[in-house]
C-alpha cells in the first residue's frame, strides 16, 4: 500500500494485490450530509454514469466500455456517520490477460467522466437531466416495493433525532423533484473543488504508471474536516409505529441506542456481542427464535458503529407478534445477564476472525478497509490490533456492551395472520 498526495485533500492510494484477475479503481467524494445537497449528489451520480461530452449517447458510452473488454463504470451513494459519499467505480480485466492497455484507457475514461460532463451553457444537458431525474424518481418509488427496505426506512425515521441523519443516502422523491439542471451543475463544480477525495487503485498494477496517469487530473487543493461519527442522546420514550400492509409476512424491526463507535475501547466487544446475539447462525436469536421456536425464517442483528445505531430485524407471522417480540427481548436480556457460555464466546471470536480474513478475498472489501484507514487513521485497526483486541474481549466486556443497548424505536409492518 502506498499513498500519494495529488492535492491538499486529494489522495491516491495504490494497493498492489496480485491474486485478482481484475483491477478496481474507486474514487470517493465526501462531505457532511446536508438536505440541501443530497438530491444533487444522487442526480450527479446518475448523470456521470450515463453520458458525457465525449460519449454523448448511452450507446456510445456502453460501446466504449465493451471495447475495453467489458470494463464497468458504476456510481453509488452511501453514508458513513455524518458523511455522505459519492463513489465512482471502474472495474476492468488486468491488461496481461487481454494484451490491451485496459489500465490507461479506463483511467482516461474516468478523467473524461469527471472533467468533461455533458454541459450546455453552464447547465447539465437538460434533456438527459430530465430523463435521469424521472428514472430516479421511479427507482425511489419502486424501492418501497422491497418490504425490508421500506421497514428499515421507517425504523430509521423513528430512531434518528437528526433529520439529515434520518435521510436515506439515495435521497427522497421530494429532494430529487426540486432540482434543476443549472443548480445541479453549479453544485457539481463545487463538489469537484471542495469535497474530500480519495482515489483507490487495487490490483496487479505498475504503481509508477498509475501515479503518472492520475497526475494530470485537474484536482485543486481543498480543506477538509473529518467529522465522521454521529451520535445522539438517549431518549426516555420508545418511538413505536405499527402499520397494516397487504403482505404475507410481517416485519418487526427494533432500533437500539449504541454508545460504541468504531475504534473505541469497546469496539471489539461490540463485535462479539453482536455475533452472539444475532450476527451468526449460532447466535441466540437464530438458535432460539428461528430454530427452537420456528417463529422466523430471517432474523438477525446488525450495527452501524459510525452512527451509533443497533438493529434487530425479524420476518414473522402477524399472529406471533407478542411471542416473537418477547423471545427477542429475552435473548438480549440473557446477554445482559451474562447468560452465555465461554464456548459460545470462543466460537463467535473464531467466526469473526474468519470473516475478517475471508473478506480480504474480495477487491471491494479491501478498498473498504483502506477507506476507513484514510478516514480515521488514528482509530484504524490493523490486522494485528484487530486480532489481539479480539482475543482480549472478556465475558464482562460483552455483558457491559449489551447492557448499554437501549431500545429507542420499534416498527412493525403487520400483514396477514396465518396463525399457528
Amino acid at each position: 500500500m502506498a499513498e500519494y498526495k495529488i492535492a491538499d485533500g486529494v489522495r491516491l492510494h495504490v494497493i498492489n494485490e496480485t491474486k485478482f484477475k481484475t483491477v478496481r479503481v474507486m474514487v470517493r467524494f465526501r462531505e457532511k450530509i446536508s438536505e440541501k445537497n443530497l438530491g444533487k449528489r444522487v442526480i450527479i451520480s446518475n448523470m456521470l454514469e450515463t453520458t458525457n461530452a465525449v460519449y454523448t449517447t448511452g450507446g456510445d458510452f456502453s460501446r466504449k466500455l465493451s471495447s475495453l473488454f467489458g470494463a464497468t463504470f458504476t456510481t453509488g451513494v452511501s453514508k458513513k456517520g455524518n458523511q455522505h459519499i459519492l463513489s465512482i467505480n471502474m472495474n476492468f480485466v488486468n491488461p496481461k490477460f487481454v494484451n490491451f492497455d485496459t489500465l490507461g484507457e479506463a483511467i482516461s475514461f474516468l478523467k473524461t467522466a469527471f472533467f468533461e460532463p455533458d454541459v450546455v451553457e453552464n447547465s447539465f444537458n437538460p434533456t438527459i437531466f430530465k430523463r435521469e431525474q424521472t428514472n430516479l424518481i421511479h427507482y425511489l418509488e419502486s424501492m418501497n416495493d422491497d418490504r425490508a427496505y421500506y421497514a428499515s426506512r421507517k425504523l430509521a425515521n423513528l430512531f434518528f433525532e437528526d433529520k439529515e441523519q434520518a435521510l436515506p443516502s439515495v435521497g427522497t422523491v421530494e429532494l430529487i423533484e426540486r432540482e434543476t439542471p443549472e443548480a445541479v451543475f453549479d453544485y457539481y463544480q463545487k463538489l469537484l473543488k471542495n469535497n474530500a477525495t480519495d482515489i483507490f487503485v487495487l490490483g496487479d498494477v505498475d504503481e509508477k504508471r498509475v501515479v503518472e496517469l492520475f497526475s494530470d487530473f485537474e484536482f485543486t487543493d481543498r480543506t477538509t474536516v473529518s467529522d465522521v461519527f454521529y451520535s445522539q442522546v438517549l431518549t426516555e420514550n420508545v418511538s413505536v409505529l405499527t402499520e397494516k400492509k397487504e403482505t404475507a409476512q410481517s416485519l418487526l424491526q427494533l432500533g437500539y441506542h449504541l454508545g460504541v463507535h468504531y475504534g473505541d475501547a469497546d469496539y471489539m466487544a461490540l463485535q462479539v456481542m453482536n455475533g452472539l446475539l444475532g450476527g451468526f447462525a449460532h447466535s441466540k436469536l437464530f438458535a432460539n427464535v428461528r430454530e427452537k421456536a420456528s417463529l422466523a425464517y430471517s432474523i438477525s442483528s446488525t450495527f452501524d458503529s459510525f452512527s451509533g445505531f443497533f438493529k434487530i430485524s425479524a420476518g414473522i407471522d402477524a399472529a406471533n407478534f407478542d411471542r416473537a417480540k418477547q423471545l427477542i427481548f429475552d435473548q438480549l436480556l440473557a446477554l445482559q445477564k451474562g447468560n452465555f457460555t465461554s464456548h459460545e464466546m470462543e466460537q463467535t471470536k473464531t467466526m469473526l476472525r474468519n470473516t475478517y480474513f475471508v473478506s480480504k478475498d474480495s477487491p471491494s472489501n479491501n478498498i473498504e478497509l483502506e477507506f476507513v484507514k484514510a478516514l480515521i487513521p488514528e482509530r484504524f485497526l490493523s490486522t494485528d490490533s484487530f486480532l489481539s483486541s479480539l482475543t482480549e474481549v472478556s465475558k464482562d466486556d460483552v455483558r457491559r456492551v449489551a447492557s448499554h443497548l437501549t431500545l429507542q424505536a420499534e416498527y412493525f409492518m403487520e400483514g396477514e395472520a396465518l396463525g399457528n
Partner: protein
Amino acid sequence: METKFYEKTGETLFSDVLSNGLTVYYLPKADYNRTYGLFTTNFGSLDTTFIPRGATEFQTFPEGIAHFLEHKLFEKEDGDVMYKFGALGAQTNAFTSFSRTSYLFSTRENSYECTQLLLDFVQKPYFTEENVHKEQGIIQQEIQMYQDDSDFRLFAGLLAKMYPESPLAADIAGTPATINAITSEDLYQNYETFYHPSNMNLFLTGPFDIDKMADFVKNNQENKTFVKIEEIKRQPFQAENPRSFDQLELEVAMPKFALGLRGEDEIPKSSKELLIYKLSNQIFLDLLFGRTSERYEKLYNVGLIDDSFGFSFDLEKQFHFSILTADTENPEKLSQALQEALKSYKIDKDFSVEHLDLLKREMLGDYFSSLNSLEYIANQFASEIYDDLNFFDLPEILEKITLDVIEKYAEKFINEMKLVEFTILPK
C-alpha cells in the same frame, strides 16, 4: 486423478471420479484466504415424480420436497450441523434450484475438517416426524417472504404461465399445504434415490495442499459403504400448452412486465454443441437488446425502459427459455417493440459482425472478472450439463461463435418458440 492446465487463465484443475461414483474437482488457489467447498446433488424442485430406489412404480411426492430435505439435512441427533461448522470457524449454507441442491462451507481455518464435515453431514440423514414438523414453521416464513417480493412474483408468475401443469409452475419451496404433507418417510425415500455419490459432485477451491486434500476426500469416501450404482428413473418433463397472456395486481409503484419465450426446438446432443447453443442464444439477445444496441438506447430515451430492464436465457436438458423483464409505464408498447425486434432480427442493424465482435470482447473480459469469485466458479461446475467440457473451456468455445452460428440457432428457436406475456399492475 486428472490434471489440466488452462493456459488462458493460468488455472490448474484437478478432477477425479471415485470408485463410488462421486465426481470431485479441486481448484487450488494459493493466494486466497478462504477455502470454499460445494457439494451438489442432481436433484431439484422438478424431481417430484420418479421411481424410488428399490421400487418399481413411479411415485409423486409433494412439491417443495427437495428444498425441505435441504433444510432437514442440517439437523442431526446431536444438534444442528451449523454449530459444528461454527465451532470450526466456518460458515455454511445450502440452496435448491429446479434441478440441483447444493451444500457449502467457506472457511479460512480447518479446511480439511470442514470438508470432512460437509461430506459426513450430507451423507448421513436423520429425519424424525418431530423434527420434520418443526421445520414446517420456518419454511412457511420463507415462502411468505418470497410472496412479498414483487420481482420473484413476476418470475414465478411468468414461469407458471409458460409451463402450466408442470413442476416449473410450482414454487421451489412448495406451498404451505404441500410442505405440511411431507413426512419423514418421504424424505428418506427421496434421499436414498438422489443422494447416491454417483448422482453428486464435490468442488473444492482454496489454498489447501492438493495431495493432502485428495487423500482426505478419498479416505473419507472409502470408509463409507454405499449401495450399488443404479440409474435414476425420473418422469420426463411435461407441461401443458402455455397461456399467452396474464396479469396480476399487487402493491407496486410501477407496472412490471415480463416476456417469456418458451423454447420448443430440439437442443443439440453433443456437449460442445450444447454449450455453443447456449452462448449463441445469450449473445442473440444481447445483440438485439443489450446496452450496446441501438434499440436499448431508443427504448431508454423514450422512457419505455430504464436500468431495471434485463434479459436471460436459461437452458436445462428438459427445457429452455428466454425471459425479458422491465419496470415500465407502458407494458403494451414495450411488448410490441420487443416482439417486433424478435421477428425482424435478420434485417436489424445491431445483428452484425461488428456488434458481435464487440460483445465477444466484453464477454471475454466478464469471464476473467468472474474468476475472482470462488463461489461463482464453484457454482458453474455444480450446474454442469456439458459432461466433458467445463467453465474453463469457455474462452475457446467463445472464439468459435460466428454470426452464422447465431443465426442458425436463432432461426430454429424463434420459429418454434411460444410467446407468453405476464404483467404485474399496481393496485
